[in-house]
């Protein structure tokens, strides 16, 4: 079979996933279990092979997936996706972005508000949800803006955003520069029980910066962004969370000090969580040396010391989730001068393989990686996703943790192909992705 097959409109029925290793960390399951799915939810979890020929399927379309040698896990939940629709359909659409998610094993994505128009009011949220319902392959949970138009001047309509279905608010891509406005945003968001996600990069310290500041930026002659540009805003927002009692989530932590600040805040008992991206725990600013614009991201790739601290943060539980910061950009955004290129990379389709590197290098156990990609991420934005208890939504990923493959950006389901991992040899490949009992991706 050539290209991956995507079936959008399969009728609901009964699906049995048998012979696989079921890993459902939230429910402390890791072993030979069969998963029985009916009407879009988990119907039963049975001893492997116990559903024999004697089973009388309740529906005509009874399907069996043989997952021999494969891992069966809750579908991944991405806290940080840019679907680009509305406004930047040349980079990505809800259709292609969710196809990319499905190919990466993600069954739910939280999409950021920096669309055009910005998702700062209910009508935009409704539009996104409508498109997702009609064309999306996976669950889409919009994140609303903190400020109108992401301009950092006035609060967005958080009340109606929440009502329309937003699960959090964030000005991601921009930092709320004014501390008083951020304070108000946290207080306002708290009134609607919305977590605030901070994109923490001080815009003045980072001005015109394109990579991490250090000996590499000095040698390349590129303008640097100091670690402190992130640390200062993380510290500021932690103090504001302390002041306001708001739920704060720090997006894409990339520095050692950032991890330490979050750890300290947690120790204090504050309601703070944070995420890390696969590219930040995989690459360092050394990758910039060839001026490949696919190494340009915000926050920038940091030093080896920072990278190690991120992995340590994953190990000790300071970091709550792995999120992709899937940021598709077209060739015309990237085939330009390094200074002019857009920030960000395609993330959904390489996240699993890059995360599994941490298992191979014995930094994490496979259950930990799955937790970070599923229920832990979901709980940050209050989603009842990411586990396979009886009665839960049947969002499932089946993957081969050992299959070696070479990342081929041109074969991505995403509309964009901007990836620094193109050509990289990795291990761990998604075989099947199931959303509410429907197969949305098979390799």
């Amino acid at each position, binding site marked *: 079979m050539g290209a991956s097959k995507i079936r959008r409109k399969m009728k609901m029925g009964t699906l049995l996933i048998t012979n696989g290793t079921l890993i459902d960390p939230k429910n402390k399951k890791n072993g030979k279990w069969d998963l029985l799915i009916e009407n879009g939810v988990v119907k039963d979890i049975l001893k492997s092979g116990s559903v024999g020929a004697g089973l009388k399927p309740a529906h005509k379309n009874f399907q069996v997936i043989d997952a021999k040698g494969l891992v069966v896990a809750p579908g991944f939940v991405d806290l940080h996706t840019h679907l680009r629709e509305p406004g930047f359909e040349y980079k990505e659409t809800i259709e292609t972005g969710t196809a990319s998610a499905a190919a990466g094993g993600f069954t739910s994505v939280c999409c950021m508000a920096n669309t055009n128009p910005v998702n700062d009011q209910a009508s935009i949220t409704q539009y996104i949800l409508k498109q997702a319902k009609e064309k999306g392959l996976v669950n889409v949970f919009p994140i609303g803006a903190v400020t109108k138009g992401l301009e950092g001047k006035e609060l967005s309509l958080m009340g109606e955003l929440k009502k329309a279905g937003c699960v959090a608010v964030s000005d991601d891509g921009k930092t709320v520069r004014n501390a008083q406005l951020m304070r108000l945003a946290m207080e306002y968001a708290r009134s609607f029980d919305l977590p605030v996600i901070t994109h923490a990069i001080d815009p003045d310290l980072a001005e015109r910066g394109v990579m991490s500041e250090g*000996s590499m930026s*000095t040698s390349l002659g590129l303008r640097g962004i100091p670690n402190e540009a992130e640390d200062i805003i993380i510290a500021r927002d932690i103090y504001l969370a302390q002041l306001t009692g708001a739920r704060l989530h720090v997006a894409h932590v990339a520095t050692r000090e950032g991890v330490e600040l979050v750890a300290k805040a947690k120790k204090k008992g504050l309601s703070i969580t944070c995420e890390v991206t696969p590219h930040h725990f995989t690459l360092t600013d050394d990758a910039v040396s060839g001026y490949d614009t696919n190494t340009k991201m915000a926050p920038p790739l940091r030093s080896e010391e920072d990278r190690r601290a991120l992995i340590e943060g994953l190990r000790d539980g300071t970091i709550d989730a792995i999120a992709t910061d899937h940021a598709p950009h077209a060739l015309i955004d990237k085939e330009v*001068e390094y*200074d002019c290129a857009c920030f960000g990379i395609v993330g959904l389709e390489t996240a699993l393989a890059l995360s599994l590197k941490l298992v191979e290098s014995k930094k994490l156990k496979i259950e930990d990686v799955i937790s970070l990609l599923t229920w832990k991420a979901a709980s940050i934005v209050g989603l009842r996703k990411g586990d396979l208890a009886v009665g839960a939504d049947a969002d499932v990923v089946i993957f081969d943790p050992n299959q070696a493959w070479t990342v081929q950006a041109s074969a991505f389901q995403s509309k964009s192909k901007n990836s620094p991992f193109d050509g990289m040899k990795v291990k761990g490949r998604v075989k099947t992705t199931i959303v509410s009992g429907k197969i949305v991706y098979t390799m």
Partner: protein
Amino acid sequence: MMKFERKDLLGIEDLSRKEIEFILHTARTLNEVSNRAVKKLPTLRGKTVINLFFESSTRTRTSFEIAGKRLSADVINISKSGSSIEKGENLLDTAKNLEAMGPDIIVCRHSSAGVPWVLAKNLKASVINAGDGAHEHPTQALLDIMTVQDAKGKTDGLNISIVGDIAHSRVARSNIYGFLKMGAKVTVVAPYTMMPHGIEKMGVRVSHQLQEGVRDADVIMMLRIQQERLGLAPFSTLREYSQLYGLNLSVLKNCKKDVVIMHPGPVNRGVEIDAQVADGPYSVILTQVTNGVSVRMALLYLLAGGK
């Protein structure tokens, strides 16, 4: 005799001392042409050199143009106004279009670091970096090394002090790579606001005080203060900068007696360097310009003709 195997000349960082010496040897051989009554060699007849200058330049562009014409190449100048180099401009498209016209050498200057590398990777033509952002300016470093050799007879063991906005200077970076490879010791001098992070990892001594930084120098290289730069100024007033980091006779008084003064130009007299110093007996600023033509002739010759 050594063969020059490179397709492109992008930076000093990846050149060996041998290659630098070979380029300078070639430059000295060609130097003689510039002193003839008829300043022309037929070597590059039928070759096309495009000067692709995305950033304005008088000295470097003219120098490359004269170098090309003295070797009988057809030299075309393309300059782009700063306004058109904006987000969304497809660099590769520009490059591919030029390629379609079949040039042999593209000489590129750009305000963004790395552009010559991108061009070189995507073009069959040879690419010469004529300055990329705050990264490298290899032909400047080559002509500077040549000038120091002319003045001092050697580079090994010399103390070179580079003074000024190191953070934003491609001349500084290329010269640091170049002089270190040539056996010299390099000191960089600037206030902290103009000193980039991690510069000491390049193997230089760092000083923040002018007199201290140039006391033992055999060569002092003053960098131009770019008054037109964007963003917040890294010093209070030009007057204060000039008082603290400008090279004048009273600073020079405490330097080595045979110190040589250099400047990549254009000079701001009275800012980073006093007129009496710039135009004084220790100054080799105009020799630098003359050597620039020879070095560029050598590179055009080696990349297009001398194979």
